[in-house]
């Protein structure tokens, strides 16, 4: 699961038959420096959301085959919003080593 920031939404006019009433978010996954600097995101991806994440929110996205596990029927999804993140504690380096 990667940490990502929601930057937008996508709506579809034509969709795969397995999708109905889906909510799709455009998200920027965090890179190695993002937690410290707020910059250096990875390339944006589209993630399926069922938790109701809003623009600007930090979320956890599950990727690859595991993204489809919550669905009962086979669904063509490879990024799934699995958590709305409230707080992030991050220390880039160990303060106890020089």
């Amino acid at each position, binding site marked *: 699961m990667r940490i990502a920031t929601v930057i937008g939404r996508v709506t579809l006019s034509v969709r795969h038959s397995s999708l109905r009433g889906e909510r799709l978010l455009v998200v920027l996954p965090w890179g190695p420096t993002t937690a410290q600097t707020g910059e250096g995101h990875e390339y944006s991806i589209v993630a399926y959301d069922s938790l109701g994440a809003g623009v600007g929110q930090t979320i*956890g996205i599950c990727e690859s085959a*595991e*993204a489809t596990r*919550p669905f009962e029927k086979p669904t063509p999804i490879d990024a799934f919003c699995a958590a709305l993140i*409230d707080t992030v504690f991050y*220390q880039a380096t160990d303060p106890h080593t020089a």
Partner: protein
Amino acid sequence: MRLAYIRGYVTSTVKHPSFHGARLLIAQPVDQADKPDGSPQLVLDPLNTSLHEKVIICSDGSWARNYLKDPRSPARWWVMGIVDPEGSSTQ
């Protein structure tokens, strides 16, 4: 499996039900020179890892679902082992 450092944790109220009660740590994967490489991952922590420990994280989703006792869980990454600095090397 990737080498990574535990750099923090997150808290979350609204999440997939399979994650209730699970500790989600932030693991930063590193390259052979110990430099950060790629996005930090939120990982499950069956070993009670502490902060800044060097670990191996594993992407076996099947084991993660078994650990969370939910076949519908989207979990994937988890801490598989804590690296012993004495016996490890790269060339």
